[in-house]
Each structure stands twice: as structure tokens, then as C-alpha cells.
């Protein structure tokens, strides 16, 4: 059990990595039906829309969102419509918190200067 420090280079192209439906299910330990339902409810979306679920590809952001949906469902016993609404509201909250932080910072800079 030795801690090895290794340097890992992250390529600029990495953010475009995608996963198939099978891969996201294997990673998340969830059923394809669950992912398909989330897509149908607009909670997550594949990179390119396709009628055939086995052609779907999901990006990193979507994978993280799926995990979040899974945790919320497991921990708070939410159903899919509840999940859809919660995640949308959480997105809004995150966006607003960032905006408030940014405005507060700007206000602070402005007040410091005057």
C-alpha cells in the first residue's frame, strides 16, 4: 500500500469523451430503463438525439448528472417527475448562487475602490 505520485496529463480533447447507454448503466449500477426514463423526462440528454437508445452517447456532464439523480432517488426516495423537477431547481439554485457570489464580489471590488 504505497502511495505513488504519478503525473497524468489531461488532453484538451478529454472533455469530449462519451459513453454508451450500456457503459453508463455499468458504471452507475443502474438499469437501462431508468436512464431511458430520465431521457424521456428531459432530466438528461444524449449528445445527439436518436430514436434508438442503443445509439445514444452521453458526455461527462451527463454522467455526473445521472449519478446525482441516482443518489437523490436512493436517498430521498424520489420518483422520476420529482427528480426532474428537483434537478432543474438545483440547477437554478447553483446558477443563482454563482451569480450572487459574482455580484457580491463585484460590489466588493467597487466599494473597495471608492
Amino acid at each position, binding site marked *: *500500500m504505497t*502511495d505513488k*505520485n*504519478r*503525473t*497524468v*496529463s*489531461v*488532453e*484538451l480533447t*478529454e*472533455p469530449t*469523451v462519451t459513453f454508451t447507454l450500456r457503459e453508463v448503466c*455499468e*458504471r452507475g449500477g443502474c438499469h437501462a430503463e431508468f436512464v431511458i426514463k430520465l431521457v424521456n423526462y428531459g432530466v438528461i440528454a444524449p449528445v445527439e438525439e436518436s430514436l434508438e437508445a442503443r445509439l445514444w452517447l452521453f458526455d*461527462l*456532464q451527463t*454522467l*455526473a448528472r445521472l*449519478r*446525482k439523480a441516482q*443518489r*437523490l432517488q*436512493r*436517498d*430521498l426516495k424520489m420518483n422520476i417527475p420529482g427528480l426532474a423537477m*428537483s434537478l432543474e431547481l*438545483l440547477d437554478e439554485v*447553483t446558477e443563482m*448562487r*454563482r451569480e450572487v*457570489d*459574482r455580484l457580491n*464580489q*463585484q460590489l466588493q*471590488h*467597487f466599494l473597495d*475602490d*471608492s
Partner: protein
Amino acid sequence: MDFKDYYAVLGVSESASPEEIKKVYRKLARKYHPDVSKEENADEKFKDVGEAYEVLKDPEKRAEYDELKKYGARKDGSFQRPPGWESASGFGGGGYTEADPGQFSDFFEEIFGGGRRGGAGFGGQRHSMRMRGEDVHARLAMFLEEIVKGCERQVSFNVQEADANGRVVPRQKTLNVKIPAGMKEGQHIRLKGQGAPGVGGAENGDLFIEVEYAPHPHFTVQGSDILVTVPIAPWEAALGASVTVPTVGSKVNLKVPKGSSSGRKLRLKGKGLPGKHPGDQLVVLQIVMPEQHSEKAEELYRELAEAEKAFNPRSKLHV
């Protein structure tokens, strides 16, 4: 080992009814859920609450716990398992619910985890089992200078790993990671194979890093643009001037147009966040006064006031 007061964790009395406990738990679970809460240590509190509920919701476990609370808890808050104590609620035999038992405290493990000690059942299966390692999620707060230029950073995170006895234990891992320039807030990067190790020769999990921006003393970020407030003197605003303004990691000369008001935004093309569509730096002008004026200056202002009598800066306020 410290004794855990599950009643205190949920904030209920020892005589609380199962309904009351359920209600309080549901409320706290929403409050401290790590995906929802912004409270400090929400993660830890959520685990504590889950652990407390795991015990108190089950009449059998609750009775055992109450018994232990009476006899096992010492005055100094420490706890020692009474000799010969064996949980009868069969928890060690895989009775865990959906809650993640690996997350529970040593105290919990000591009381209810009997069957897991030694890890006999688990060890036997290990060799024939192939399982992909878990993905690990980490957050990384980056300074604006690092975001603009890219950087190399150390990232530490915990992975669950099986030790020699087949017990799953957390291990801290540290990696030097090269982060490219122009990462967006909330963007994820993946380090393939750097998550938890796979079991039975299966693939390792991946490490996912989510980028956060640390606040900067002068700059703020808006989309791909960088904002900075730049103070100027009243005569610079009136007559126009060439002033030096900071950019992230450098500085440039900027022409302030004649007759600029406070709040006027000037755009420095391409001086924002780098990327496919690089952002701009927005300079917000702010007119500031010297702390004191010389007599000569005051005289000049009086002359100015006379010459510009017609100007009403408050005309928008209808006064």
C-alpha cells in the same frame, strides 16, 4: 471509541415514536443531502443522520441500542462493547438496507457489524468475482491565473480498496494532474483508470474532477469574459487618458475615451478565458476622487462649476 448518541443526532427524545423518528429523518435527509445542501460538513451530517435512522427505525436494533446506551456508554462519552455482546438483529449477515454500510462509523460496525468482522464470507468469493472499480468524484478549486494559463496541481482523494484480509478500506491517493487552460466552472475532466482498483483483474474505475473557481481579489468571471473594475481620476474621465489596467497575470494599456462616466464598460478583445471561442476582458470604469484637494484644485473646480452650470446630473430623478 466514542459512544454515538443517535437520538441527539436526529434531535429526538428517547421516547420518540417510530413515526416521529421517520418524519425527522426525512426532513434532515433533505436538509443535509450532499447534492442539495451547501452547509459545511453536509456530507458527514448526512451520513450520521442515515446511520442513526438505520438503527432507530428498526424496533429490534433500537432495543439493542437502548440497552447498550444504558450499560455500554461511559460518563466521559467513550464506549466499550460489553463482553460477550452479540447483536441479535442479524445485521452482519447482509441485512443492510439501501443505505451504504461502508459509510457507517466504527461505532456502528462495532455493535451491528458482527458478521463482517474477519470478512470470511467475502474473502472466499473474491477470487471468482470480477468487478469494475468504482468511479471516484473529486472537486478542485482553481485560481483564475491557473484557469487562464493551465496548471499542474496535486489532487488528493479517497478510494475504497480491499486490504490483505479482504476488508474494504478507504485509502488516500494523490496524483499530479496537468489541467489544460480555459476550464469552465462546473466542467468535468476524466482521468481514466485512476479511480478505485477493479476486483479480479477487472478494469479500474475512473477519477472525475469537477472544476470550481476560487474567488479572485480583483477579477470576476462572467461566462468566458473576465470583469475588472478600474478606478480613474475625474480629469482622466473628462479629457480621456491612456491608463494601465491589469489582466490576469499581466497588464495592458487602455485608452479611456474622452467624457467617460462611471460604470462605462470597455472591452479588451480576446483577453478573457482562453478556449475555442476566447472571451474578452471587460473593464468597468469607476471615477474616484482624491482624498484631499489642494486649494488650487478647489479654485479650478469652482471655475468649472461656473462654466458648466447648465449640467444637471440628477435630471433622471426629476429634481
